[in-house]
């Protein structure tokens, strides 16, 4: 590696670590975002108001209902509306879930038969639904094991109203990882280059024999490193603090993050070539980030969007990266399953980065 490249990288890191605002962006933002999202979501999964339809009315069924209130996740109360009108209490918003225990629950449990209980959830609160149904399933199985003394099937059959796709708190951390990587690398790259133009140091650099490509590499590389550091930080906090499961391969996630960086750094470079002040660069990066986040499926599943907007999401590289991060972290997806997204990001990366690099070096020579 050339002296010039090493000099550039060293200088960029000195500047980042000497700038207090920059440090706040790099270290505090991921943690604050995680805590914010993590806790907002976590608070909601307590105190799930649950209507209980107990058609069994035995000691065991009552005991089971009582056991669900342990830990404060559920607030079970006997249902007041008849089962046929169950939906009305959801529509009023006075209930989050309904638990239906069929006749014969106690008897089947004692004879170790096959039992199914019913659970209806208000899917308009997607996080509550996903977490609540999960809790209920585990509680039911734990109860059955405690009573019978061995593992036995106790099925919870659930029916999610209004929103069949339930997003969970676990969906948040992967979303934050994708968002952070996008915003931080794009914004910092654009601003670092524009700052040099603003201050006149870029001109001083351009009279040195540094080649435009060394200059470009030296400007972009430090932010790639910072970006990967950011997501490591987010992942560590997510896994250690929020107990987020990480099913897939971290190595694959980092490799594909590096691939995705080609696009975000390219965007940052591009913004630096069309702006002349840091404020402008910040605004461009911010505007693009909002667009990218909203159409990435972070908050709203893409298939819930109107058809025309679904087409729009295809021009958003973050959409594909979001899929990759969720796939790897939550579903344990491997290289094979993610190939379509990877191809798309390769194309995005090559096109965006090459275009911006050419623009940048034209201006720099």
């Amino acid at each position, binding site marked *: 590696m050339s*002296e010039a490249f090493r000099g550039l990288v*060293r200088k960029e890191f000195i500047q980042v670590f000497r700038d207090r605002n920059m440090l706040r962006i790099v270290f505090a933002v991921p943690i604050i975002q995680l805590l914010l999202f993590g806790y907002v979501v976590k608070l909601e999964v307590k105190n799930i108001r649950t209507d209980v339809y107990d058609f069994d009315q035995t000691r065991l069924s009552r005991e089971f209902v009582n056991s669900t209130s342990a830990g404060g996740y559920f607030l079970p109360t006997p249902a007041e509306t008849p089962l046929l009108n169950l939906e009305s209490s959801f529509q009023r918003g006075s209930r989050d879930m309904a638990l239906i225990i069929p006749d014969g629950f106690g008897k089947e449990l004692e004879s170790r038969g096959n039992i199914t209980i019913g659970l209806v959830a208000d899917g308009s609160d997607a996080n509550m639904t996903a977490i609540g149904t999960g809790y209920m399933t585990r509680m039911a199985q734990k109860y059955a094991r405690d009573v019978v003394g061995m593992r036995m099937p106790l099925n919870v059959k659930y029916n999610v109203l209004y929103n069949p796709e339930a997003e969970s708190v676990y969906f948040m951390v992967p979303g934050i990882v994708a968002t952070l990587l996008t915003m931080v690398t794009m914004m910092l790259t654009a601003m670092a280059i524009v700052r040099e133009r603003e*201050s006149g140091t870029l001109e001083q650099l351009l*009279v040195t024999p540094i080649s435009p490509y060394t200059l470009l590499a030296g400007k972009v590389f430090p932010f790639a490193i910072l970006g990967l550091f950011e997501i490591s930080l987010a992942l560590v906090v997510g896994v250690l603090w929020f107990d987020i499961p990480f099913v897939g391969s971290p190595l694959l996630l980092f490799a594909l993050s590096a691939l995705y960086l080609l696009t975000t750094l390219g965007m940052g470079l591009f913004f630096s070539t069309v702006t002349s002040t840091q404020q402008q660069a910040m605004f461009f990066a911010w505007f693009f980030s909002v667009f990218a986040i909203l159409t990435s499926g972070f908050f709203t599943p893409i298939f819930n969007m109107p058809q025309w907007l679904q087409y729009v999401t295809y021009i958003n590289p973050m959409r594909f990266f979001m899929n990759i991060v969720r796939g790897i972290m939550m579903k344990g997806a491997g290289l094979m399953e993610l190939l379509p997204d990877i191809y798309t990001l390769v194309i995005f990366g090559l096109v965006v980065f090459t275009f911006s690099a050419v623009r940048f070096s034209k201006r720099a020579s």
Partner: protein
Amino acid sequence: MTERPAVTIDNLSRHFDSFKAVDGISLEVTSGETFGFLGANGAGKTTTIRMLCGLLAPTSGSGTVAGFDIYRQAEEIKKSIGYMSQKFSLYPDLTGKENLSFYGAAYGMNGSSIASRTEELAERLDLHDFIDRPTRSLPVGWRQRLALGVSLLHRPRILFLDEPTSGVDPVFRRKFWKILYELAEEGVTVFVTTHYMDEAEYCGRISIMHQGKIVEVGQPFELIQKHRAENLEELFINLINGREAANAEA
């Protein structure tokens, strides 16, 4: 060594849309010369220097710097010149030493040669007292000395200085020029723009530029005599005013 030209400019122009910032100028600067490139604000001095340093493409005409063609050999030119712009060109959040190391690396120098050269320049330019402070906290005169240090790091043969002493007090200007003199004695060509006529008198030769054209070239004393002026300032004002009057008649 025969005196071969450090800079040649032949009919060089740069237009910005219909505005002719530099309008067909020709000039030759010999090696080891201290050349004062004078002119009013907006006369086209900075544009000319930017073209010579490879920062701006000319519209037409030709030129060489250190014997290299300004169109085709920009890389070689960049290795042989030092450039100090009128803008503050140091990183404000880095210390003087860090600035020097960084620019040294940008010139492809290795760590040990940067260290020894920094020591040498610190001694020569008297930087020791403030070389470890962030440059944003330094007074203009000190920054300018550091900036000169940056432009001298790689031992350039030609130095382009664009108003290096603007905003600097007289004592500092005197020191600054003493250093430039020493450099010239070592054979470095100094190509400098300035608004201070006392500085212009220090130059071996000067040119006076007005509205993109070079109006007069020569040794300061000769020019004063030729135009029967009291001093350089009067010469400068007379020449510029004369031009304006001629323009008004035309």
